[in-house]
């Protein structure tokens, strides 16, 4: 099963609705990431594992600025990583 970008975006938005509702109204940006370990980094880390199969994942970034109690502008960002089948692999924010 491979979903369209719009379908994957909706999955990310549904996740945000529950996890970070303050970002629910934000339209995310989209990036593709390739799951690959840089060879130089792998060598430095002494990793002997077989290479990761190159596969792309989709990252949806929800970002807005809010105003804190003292008037300061604070960036609020959450990035949701979704695979081609719509599984949410990771959500991380500030």
């Amino acid at each position, binding site marked *: 099963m491979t979903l369209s970008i719009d379908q994957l975006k909706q999955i990310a938005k549904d996740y945000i609705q529950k*996890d*970070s*509702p*303050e970002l629910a109204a934000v339209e995310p*940006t989209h*990036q593709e*990431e390739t*799951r*690959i*370990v*840089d*060879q*130089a*980094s792998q060598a*430095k*880390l002494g*990793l*002997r594992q*077989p*290479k*990761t199969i*190159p596969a792309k*994942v989709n*990252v949806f*970034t929800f*970002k807005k600025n*809010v*105003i*804190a*109690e*003292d008037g*300061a*502008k*604070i*960036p*609020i*960002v959450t*990035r949701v*990583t979704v695979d081609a089948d719509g599984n949410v*692999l*990771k*959500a*991380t*924010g*500030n």
Partner: protein
Amino acid sequence: MSFQPITSGQTLSGSLSSEGSLGYQIQVAANHKLVIRLDGPDDADFDLYVKYNSPVTRWDYDFKRISRYADEELTIGPTQSGSYFILVYAYRGEGQFSLSADIVSEELVLVPGQQIAGAIENTKGACYFRIPMDAGQRLMIDLNGPLAADFDLYLRFGQRPTNVNYDQRSCSGSSIEKIEVAATQQGDYFGMVYSYHGMGPFTLAAGSGRQPSLLIITSKDNLEHKYGSATFLRINEKITAYAQSVVATGKEVLTVFVDESDSLAPYDLDPVDPQDASAIKDLLDQLDRKLNADHFLIVGGHEIIPFHVIPNPCGDDGDTVVYSDNPYASRDLDILISERALTRLPDDAATDGTFFIGLLDQVAQRVQGPSVQAFGLSAKVWEGASNCVYQEIVSGDSVKLSPPVTNREINSDWINEKAYYYFNLHGSEETANWYGQEGVSYPVAFGPNNLNNGSVEDAVVCCEACYGANIIGKSCDSALSLSFLDQKVACFVGSTKIAYGPSEPPCTDADLIVIKFIARVKEGLPFGEAFLKAKEDFARESISMHGYLDKTEEKTLLEFVIFADPLAKMEVHS
């Protein structure tokens, strides 16, 4: 699996289907260079694995070359006497390939700071090596051979030595020999390990003989320009006092002004533009190659020794760049994974030098020993993840949450005389404050005023707030990181830009790097080394979790910096 023989100079052809493999083996004498070349299909990804003296598999090997292409080249040297087993594996795709092996009889190259292994296989046999040197260096060569043999060491500048033509030799009657050159000439030194009698393996090490434990770098021009000559002299006195305090512990220290000829002349290096981070990194690389220091300290903030400005891996989060010390800490162009234990003692934006001189005074005193207690404060929305991190600091305790806690409720008893401080709060580029969160409420959770009557000396502070370690153009009033340093904490770890973390475990990104750092500090490592190893631990665990480093993990590696004396460590009184 069978292993088909291949000889030097021979090229063999083969064919592989996807995920198939073929084996080869080659006989090699000791102390040569073995070059193995694989030429595969353009649209495939074939890999090379090699193991000495026993069959090789993809999981059991001594050497490997696994680029994303089907053409691979692997050089092994110096070789040991015996068989090298070779595996060609079709990782992706299929097709014809050719495999060649060449055994090259060229001398071994040894550089100061390096140790190589070799072997002599018969009495009166010899092994030759070459050491390229800059002028004016001290060179020490150590040979360590078999107990039952008598190996000798010969050295000659410009051409290979023989038993009768040499500049220096060491013939002790054992196989442990040493040659020292007080001041080298510019060019190649040639050496010979000679077996007077006996055979067996040996190691050969070259050193500069001068290995400062700590290399301090700063900029004279930038310090003088910012503070004026009189204050610069006071700062320089404090740097010297700090260096002397390190020397008093039995370590060697070298202080280098990156823009001063006199400072660099002993190393035959030229001064660089102190505004140019790349030039400073190149200079640091050259100094490291000559001096092989264990620890590195940058003295000064962005105005003195600039951070590297790296394009933000997470390009759409609002930060266009990341301020990072990783390039200074890396020996090569791969800046994600560092090799140097490097920290920074920053100055602030003020030009009177009060903060900076106080900070240098503090590290020179080298005192440690707070209580074992800790204080943790988290935005309420991150309670789960923050408590997961906090368990690494104090098992069985919980972080305080904001809200309900705000900076107005912070009790001095909560924060005084603790060993560790952990903050998982929001941050802003505009103010010094850190903020809590519940829903759409963002109260001020912690600010510089909370440290006014605090006693936080010698503590470790880890902050996950965005911009928690942003010091560019800041003073103690406008950056909590500087406020903590002003209050004499031993170490501050934080992010120069927007930092990431999950709301619930498992811990990733900023949460994970803090966990790894605390664990290494608790092992008793000095802060510089603890931070270096924490980043390695972070990268390994992130890759093990999902198979690669994603963009927020890359950004985390780049943006987290440490402000501390690299040699100091946490010595908690129980």
